[in-house]
């Protein structure tokens, strides 16, 4: 009997039990959805087709001309993940985190600290400092970072709930430009690795999940697609496919030559 036929659980049961944990919260969806750069009217459909349980939002100065409240458009079932975008230092990120908490949607915070306005690369050192300060205060801290092993280890020590390395420059849709380094973090860091930024296509999301990423965060891939809910659905399928492949264990790759899958006896010419 092979390993796969020994299992008594159905694929549906296995997938229903598959989850990951951030702080004390358990999530079944491995698709974290951004809500930027597309209309509020599309958010509900995007969240539903993505089957997202975590949705990121930004904190900004309130504009009285803007009467719409994004919270009226996000389904109540999702957990909000405010980010600290706009912060240039750890102190600014902490300030934004406090404001986000005062807005009253829980204790999750995604740290984004960027001092570079051309490439929008995260500042790992400031991110580590902010993670330490906010984790001590009891936030569930998800730091967005440049995929560096030493920085990732420092984030673990600082109390991060997950690590969110970038795949490519934010908003670029360039895919898994940092693939080798993402794999190192997946292999070496004992926290969920959530691949964030740069994923442009479902195939790239699928590949990251096959590598063992815990989840994918995407926004621009949907916001710049032709049909936002349809792309949300495509991403969801790809992330699930990649997760299933990872759980299954990928087939081996031959270094050289070929291997038939057909029987090696009973040929007609024998």
């Amino acid at each position, binding site marked *: 009997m092979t390993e796969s036929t020994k299992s008594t659980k159905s694929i549906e049961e296995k997938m229903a039990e598959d989850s990951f944990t951030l702080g004390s919260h358990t999530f079944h969806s491995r698709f974290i959805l951004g809500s930027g750069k597309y209309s509020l009217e599309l958010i509900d459909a995007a969240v539903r087709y993505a089957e997202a349980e975590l949705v*990121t939002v*930004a904190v*900004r100065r309130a504009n*009285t001309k803007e009467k719409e*409240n994004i919270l009226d458009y996000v389904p109540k079932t999702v957990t909000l993940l405010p980010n600290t975008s706009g912060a240039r230092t750890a102190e600014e990120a902490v300030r934004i985190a406090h*404001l*986000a908490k005062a807005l009253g949607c829980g204790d999750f915070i995604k740290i984004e600290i960027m001092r570079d306005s051309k490439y929008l690369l995260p500042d790992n050192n400031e991110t580590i400092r902010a993670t330490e300060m906010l984790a001590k205060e009891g936030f569930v801290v998800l730091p967005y970072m440049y995929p560096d092993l030493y920085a990732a280890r420092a984030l673990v020590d600082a109390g991060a709930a997950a690590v969110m390395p970038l795949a490519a420059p934010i908003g670029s849709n360039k895919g898994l430009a940092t693939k080798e380094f993402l794999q190192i973090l997946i292999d070496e860091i004992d926290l969920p690795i959530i691949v964030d930024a740069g994923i442009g296509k479902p195939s790239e999301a699928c590949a990251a999940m096959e590598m063992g990423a815990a989840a994918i965060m995407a926004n621009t891939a949907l916001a710049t697609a032709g049909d936002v809910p349809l792309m949300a659905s495509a991403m969801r399928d790809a992330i699930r496919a990649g997760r299933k492949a990872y759980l299954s264990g990928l087939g081996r790759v031959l270094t050289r030559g070929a291997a038939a899958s057909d029987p090696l006896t009973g040929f007609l010419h024998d």
Partner: protein
Amino acid sequence: MVTINGEAQAKDGTMLLDFLKEAGYDSRAIAVEYNGAILAKDAYETTSFRAGDVVEIVCFMGGGA
């Protein structure tokens, strides 16, 4: 003068809650930082602006990677 979201406004003496109503803010959807400290919502009606105050009024907006 009071600096509100980066803009100088002649609101000395105005109560915060009155300002928010008059300006059309939905107080459910906002958080207020008053001279660097976040205010509890029940402090909106006990806080009056004084000259030199710095006020930030923020809300959630769409955002992500």
